[in-house]
């Protein structure tokens, strides 16, 4: 059981980071962005290419990678943020003028498929791995074995979440972002440039998604469908936590990660992807506002 909980937390780290951007988009731009999963995919592939181009240095201690890989993650995040802004500029920005909200969701669904196939076109359909050495799992608690890479993933995820919290509550731009997500019209008449905040939102969402994607690549594997396979659990996390709530997304990501991992006690592992969906379905039925969402 302990092992499954540990695995659930590791998966939860990826899901939480992905769900943050999803919930921000849902709240600020008011649409469910089905192409958000592909930001994780692209982040993971950018890091894959960068790690072959840049020297990542000798492995640090029992980690599979050296200092250079941190730089690789950061660069991949920057590239993904740029990609997110470009997709917004090319597609969503134009469709925001349309009076039909759902048009933009369809577009995101189309963008998701296109981006996924661009990945296949560029990198091919086969799964990839960052490192070819096999990471050795160490026992940290009775019956719980984790690799140093996995500890790195969870610790860095925690650091990022604290950093995001500080950004949202301590900086002028972060507060303005919360203001826009609270009430975009009022933010506009207060003099906040909503367009800039939207770009900032893509930077935050894209960065975290890219890092989440790299985490998934480190702990599982990199593949063209990884983001699409994660989009439902991420939606489930965002809805479970309460749409619009960043802290809810983190909590939801952990709950979904744990639920998927622990579910193998009761159901066939082949149905693992459906667990997130069932949890979300139940949540929508009994408490559509989510755990940390607004009261309707």
């Amino acid at each position, binding site marked *: 059981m302990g092992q499954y909980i540990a695995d659930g937390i590791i998966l939860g780290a990826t899901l939480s980071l992905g769900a943050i951007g999803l919930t921000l988009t*849902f709240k600020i*731009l*008011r*649409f*469910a962005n*089905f192409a958000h999963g592909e930001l994780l995919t692209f982040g993971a592939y950018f890091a894959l290419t960068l790690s072959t181009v840049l020297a990542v240095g000798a492995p640090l201690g029992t980690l599979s990678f050296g200092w250079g890989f941190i730089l690789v993650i950061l660069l991949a995040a920057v590239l993904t943020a740029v990609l997110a802004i470009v997709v917004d500029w090319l*597609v969503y*920005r*134009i*469709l*925001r*003028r*349309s*009076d*039909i*909200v*759902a*048009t933009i*969701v*369809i*577009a995101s*669904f*189309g*963008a998701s*498929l*296109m981006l996924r*196939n*661009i990945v*296949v*076109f560029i990198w*091919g*359909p086969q799964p990839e791995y960052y490192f070819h050495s096999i990471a050795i799992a160490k026992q940290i608690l009775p019956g719980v074995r984790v690799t140093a890479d996995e500890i790195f993933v969870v610790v860095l995820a925690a650091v990022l979440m604290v950093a995001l919290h500080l950004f949202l509550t301590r900086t002028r731009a972060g507060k303005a972002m919360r203001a826009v997500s609270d009430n*975009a*019209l009022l933010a*506009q008449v207060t003099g906040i*440039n*909503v*367009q800039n905040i*939207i770009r900032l939102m893509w930077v935050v969402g894209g960065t975290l998604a890219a890092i989440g994607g790299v985490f998934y690549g480190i702990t599982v594997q990199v593949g063209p469908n990884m983001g*699409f396979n994660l989009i*439902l659990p991420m*939606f*489930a996390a965002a*809805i479970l936590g309460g749409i619009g709530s960043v802290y809810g997304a983190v909590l939801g990501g952990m709950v979904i990660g744990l639920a998927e991992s622990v579910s193998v006690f009761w159901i*066939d592992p*082949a*149905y693992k*992807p*459906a667990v997130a*969906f*069932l949890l*979300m*379905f139940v949540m*929508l*039925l009994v408490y*559509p506002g989510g755990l940390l969402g607004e009261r309707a």
Partner: protein
Amino acid sequence: MIGLASYLVFFLIQALIYSVVSLGLNLQWGYTGLFNIGVAGFFLIGSYTFAILCGPPYATHLGGFGLPWTVGVVAAIALSALGGLIVGLPTLRLREDYLAIATIGIAVTLQLVALNARGLTGGSRGAESIPRPFAELVSSNLWNNVVYMLLMVLIVVVIYFALEAMVRSPWGRVLKAIREDEPAASSLGKNPFVFRLQAFVIGCAIMGLGGALNASFVGFIAPTDFLPIFTFEIWAMLIVGGSGNNRGAVLGSVLVWALWTGTGSLTQAILPSGLQVKGGALQIILTGLVLMLMLILRPRGLMGEEAVVSRDADVGGDVAAAASIQESR
């Protein structure tokens, strides 16, 4: 000449099967504004229902009931309608995006079931030898296809006129009123939820019918037929043709299917065999591009939306609110 004719017949049957599904989606999205992106799931229910009820006995999975074609089709319609009811009941009261997420979730889950519940579906190997109607009457493959095409034409025409009658009836006008101004519609004593649920269930039933017709025509189904790409194709067809217009749904199905098969053959012809997988990706990218350009440049599609209800001038204070996220001047 025969080769071309038989290809055209084949092409048209596929396009008409897609038309059935697009017409179902058009009722949901075009006329009611319901955002179903789990089309593949309801198509799947219809396909497997038909295969199990009408197919031959299978060695490893359920089947062998040998029921008549019509019974299989009716059961496919009924079960996909039931699926629509189960998904619609909890989600149609919520924001439109939730329905989108719920429907894609259902589609993914059903696909997992198709893939893993081997005793029921045959797993990844699928179900084969699914019967066609009139197979014993017409033995030649080409003529059998021609008969099937005529059947498809008949079915599409029937569905088309039924849907036209429905959307022009008082019921259809309420649907549109709900889509355009829900508070006003509810203030007239119409419960939007009930109307939405009806439209959603009927739409899902039509998609299930499409699934049964497809299974019967192709004779073989496998879980890979029901991936999200299928839903995407149907959406592309409806958007290109013009949502809110039943003729548009049919036209879009033919055009996008032509584009899809065209880009497919083109990439196959151009790219060396080593790059075929990438060719498939390119095919999806190109179709996606068409959908995007359509959404951006001609959001009402080639046919545009038909006016069923006269639009009253809507003078509202929320124009400013709607403009809140718009581009700054």
